[in-house]
């Protein structure tokens, strides 16, 4: 009788597949539990105590947010309230958001929640991308707050005739079809002034989330910090 090969033996493949499937399942379960604390939203006391969280508290809307190159990590990171000696968030420099820089944790959370629900109700993701979810028919909104086009020198702010970034963004969201922006213009979605305020808070908070440099090409936008 010919010698049986291990390669044509069922049990070898069964045991190998069992090992790989079982090991991968355990690894993915571990990954799930490892991820939970990292994506938990921080609190206002974290900000007060200078603790950097991947997802900061909603009160981050009271602070100036910039996007700075972290040479050690090899990509830009959101810096909240100005940089400290190590180049990370110092949580010092505040910035008015719709005329206030003292939004309480409850008020800020409520505003953010309104914006989040608004973004779902108006289905922003049908055209835009938020934190990697959505489409690329329209610009990625993950770091839109940091886009210099909305800044004091930016074309978008100039177009809306507003004096601040948040007012310019809100004005655009209320009347998107009035402004010729893109070859693909944004339609009027019937966004109210209150919803627009919430949406801008939602976008400002989203820009402060440490996404490990996602979207990767954001720094290439003209005028953005340290375009690679």
């Amino acid at each position, binding site marked *: 009788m010919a010698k049986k090969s291990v390669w044509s033996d069922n049990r070898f493949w069964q045991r190998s597949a069992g090992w790989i499937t079982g*090991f991968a399942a355990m690894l993915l379960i571990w990954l799930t539990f490892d991820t939970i604390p990292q994506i938990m939203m921080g609190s206002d006391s974290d900000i007060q105590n200078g603790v950097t969280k991947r997802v900061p508290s909603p009160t981050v809307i009271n602070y100036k947010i910039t996007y700075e190159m972290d040479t050690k990590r090899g990509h830009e990171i959101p810096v909240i309230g100005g940089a400290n000696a190590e180049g990370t968030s110092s949580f010092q420099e505040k910035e008015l958001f719709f005329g206030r820089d003292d939004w309480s944790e409850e008020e800020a959370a409520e505003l953010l929640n309104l914006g989040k629900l608004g973004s779902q109700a108006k289905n922003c993701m049908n055209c835009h991308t938020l934190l990697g979810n959505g489409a690329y028919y329209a610009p990625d909104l993950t770091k839109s707050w940091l886009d210099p086009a909305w800044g004091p020198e930016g074309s978008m702010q100039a177009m809306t005739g507003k004096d601040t970034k948040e007012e310019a963004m809100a004005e655009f969201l209320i009347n998107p079809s009035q402004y010729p922006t893109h070859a693909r213009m944004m339609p009027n979605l019937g966004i109210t002034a209150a919803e627009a305020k919430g949406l801008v808070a939602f976008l400002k908070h989203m820009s402060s989330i*440490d996404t490990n440099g996602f979207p990767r090409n954001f720094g290439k936008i003209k005028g953005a910090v340290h375009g690679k």
Partner: protein
Amino acid sequence: MFFEPFTDVVPSFFGWLNQGPMTLTLFLHTVIVLPMFWIYKQEKARLEQEEGQ
């Protein structure tokens, strides 16, 4: 650079796995292929024993 120093926000095993293009590859090949060698040897011994009977 195949290996880069650990620079993630929070120290984590999965952060370490993702520090360079080689780290995940080496880890998965190690944990998948090495036990398969072991399974191979066991099955070979079993087949030889069955043939010997």
